[in-house]
């Protein structure tokens, strides 16, 4: 399911126009991103938690040329499904 289909479903189920539903989803995603950037954690009760975890810088190797390269420290977003979601599946 893509965002467009999601918009249509939400509009139907919450009796909103598609335009409003789309704006609402965009706002949702927007806040979610900002929260992750700022606080590195986003918990949605009954759904799950997003956590930003840090990866240290490490050395890697280009498998094709055998050349050693440096991989910079980075951050990744991890999602942990909540209990309600896990049980549903």
């Amino acid at each position: 399911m893509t965002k467009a289909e999601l918009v249509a479903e939400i509009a139907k189920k919450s009796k909103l126009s598609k335009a409003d539903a789309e704006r609402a989803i965009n706002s949702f995603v927007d806040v979610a991103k900002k929260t992750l950037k700022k606080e590195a954690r986003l918990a949605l009760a009954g759904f799950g938690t997003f956590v930003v975890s840090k990866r240290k810088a490490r050395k890697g190797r280009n498998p094709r040329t055998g050349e050693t390269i440096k991989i910079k420290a980075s951050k990744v977003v991890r999602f942990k499904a909540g209990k309600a979601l896990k049980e549903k599946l």
Partner: protein
Amino acid sequence: MALTKEAIINSIYNQVGLSKSQSRIVVEKLLEIIKETLKSGENILISGFGKFEVKEKSARRGRNPQTTEDLQLRARRVVVFKTSGVLRNSINKQS
């Protein structure tokens, strides 16, 4: 911190101009639809944010690390989240 849902509801209220209760309904419905879709085994793609995928795990033998007791882990389904490139870049930018 379960406050994040409230923060999202507030932002929809402020940015989109829906009422508080409508904003709350949208958020709840959104999560509900995502859950139902995943339950049906279908993946969800939210462009600019990420993708939720359902993965089938087959049964395997496990062990309770605390009691070292052997146990059978049933076949089950799990949700995997893949971060979109856009989000990954934006998170790594100001570090």
